[in-house]
């Protein structure tokens, strides 16, 4: 038996848990090898010393019990407080949600009662100035109207049919409103506020195809909205002029005019199309 193997068996030898043959073999090795025997004595002495420590006890702090129970009490209190805070947070969120729903329902009812008489139509203006009251943004393909408190009414209509899509009676309150199109294909909507009128193509649920196309600037806006899955704002004075185009399906800024002219720009997720 070599020294390493013998050392591995020291614990079991000391505890008398080796098989008789191994025990005998190790005992013989210890007899034959004085260095190994010294190693074992040291090992045994060390273990005995370690075990003698059991009889020497540290002084227990006089207030240990109080300290433990105070810590338990604190934990119970904190758990209970967190649970209450959690419930209150949920309740508060619920109340805010309910208030928001109530506001929306009230607005819809007000619109229904009022009809379309307050809609003002006007010319389509170009790209908005930074001071524009109605901000039109897009994120992840969804158009959002950020109404300014100074606007009293904002109306969204389908450009092709004149159908009313949405109407916001603001009464001096700002509001962020998402506007989406649940139809299969892109539609152009006219957004009319007190300050300005804007045309935006909203993507439909079906993805468009890349390639060549021909039509008006509005048709191009719809094609781009469906293909690139993002609203396209029209900033043109003549949206009816006929043009033809090529869309690569990858980068809207690389869209090319084959006939006529147009320019594509991007602000955030919103594409701007002008001629």
């Amino acid at each position, binding site marked *: 038996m070599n020294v390493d193997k013998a*050392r*591995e068996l*020291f*614990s*079991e030898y000391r505890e008398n848990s080796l098989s008789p043959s191994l025990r005998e073999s190790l005992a013989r090795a210890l007899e034959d090898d004085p260095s190994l025997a*010294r190693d074992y*004595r*040291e*090992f*045994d*002495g*060390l*273990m*005995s*010393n*370690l*075990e*003698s*420590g*059991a*009889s*020497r*006890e*540290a*002084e*227990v*702090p006089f207030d*240990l*019990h109080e*300290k*433990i*129970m*105070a*810590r*338990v009490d604190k*934990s*119970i209190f904190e*758990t209970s407080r967190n649970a209450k805070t959690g419930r209150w947070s949920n309740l508060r969120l619920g109340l805010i949600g309910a208030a928001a729903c109530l506001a929306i329902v009230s607005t819809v009812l007000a619109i229904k009662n009022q009809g379309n008489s307050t809609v003002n139509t006007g010319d389509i203006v170009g790209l908005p100035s930074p001071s524009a009251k109605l901000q039109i943004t897009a994120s992840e393909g969804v158009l959002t109207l950020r109404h300014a408190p100074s606007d009293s009414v904002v109306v969204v209509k389908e450009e092709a049919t004149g159908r009313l899509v949405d109407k916001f009676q603001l009464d001096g309150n700002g509001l962020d409103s998402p506007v989406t199109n649940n139809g299969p294909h892109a539609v152009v909507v006219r957004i009319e506020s007190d300050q300005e009128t804007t045309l935006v193509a909203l993507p439909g649920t079906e993805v468009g195809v890349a390639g060549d196309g021909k039509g008006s600037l509005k048709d191009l806006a719809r094609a781009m909205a469906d293909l690139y899955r993002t609203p396209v704002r029209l900033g043109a004075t003549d949206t009816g002029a006929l043009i033809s185009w090529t869309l690569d399906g990858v980068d809207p800024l690389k869209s090319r005019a084959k006939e006529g002219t147009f320019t594509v720009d991007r602000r955030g997720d919103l594409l701007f199309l002008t001629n």
Partner: protein
Amino acid sequence: MSQAFDDAVLIRQCQGGDRSAFDALVRQYETRAFQYAFRLTHDSDEAADIVSEAFVRVYNAIGNFRGQSAFGTWLYRILTNCYLDHRKKDKSRFHTSLETGVQVEGGEVERQIEDSAAGPGEEMERNAREHAVQEALDQMPDYQKSMLIMYHVENLSYEEIAEALDLPLGTVKSRLNRARLALRDLLATNVELFQLG
């Protein structure tokens, strides 16, 4: 009545929300828990912290205790986990030596450890041995140290350690053997202190 029976009754009462039963359970085990924590840390305050945290965990988990192991073994497991968490949180912690004085009102006094009487020479030799062992233990990985203390100082069996640390019995035996040999190697320069006869 046996300890296990007493524990089982108290635990059932705790599970039913009886605060005084929990108080009694803490009283039953706090000294033993503190001794174990102190042997791991050599620091009275840290040991008290570990024990307090362990009993908080016991309180929070006692509803799930099914008595598959003895309560004492379960407590060792929780104490060991608390100790390991403490060490993980504060690796650079200053460890108070047993030789460090204790601050009390009116100055510093020597740390008192209960001891049976012994002659001055014998006492000095024993102190030297214990000091050497403690220093070596402090150099070992925390889990090895806790295993050695559980077995050799707390007198837990291999089976109880296996339950406490959720390890197979064979793994406990082999790890303990490695830990003992590692401890012996760490004390190689002080071996004359431990030679018997």
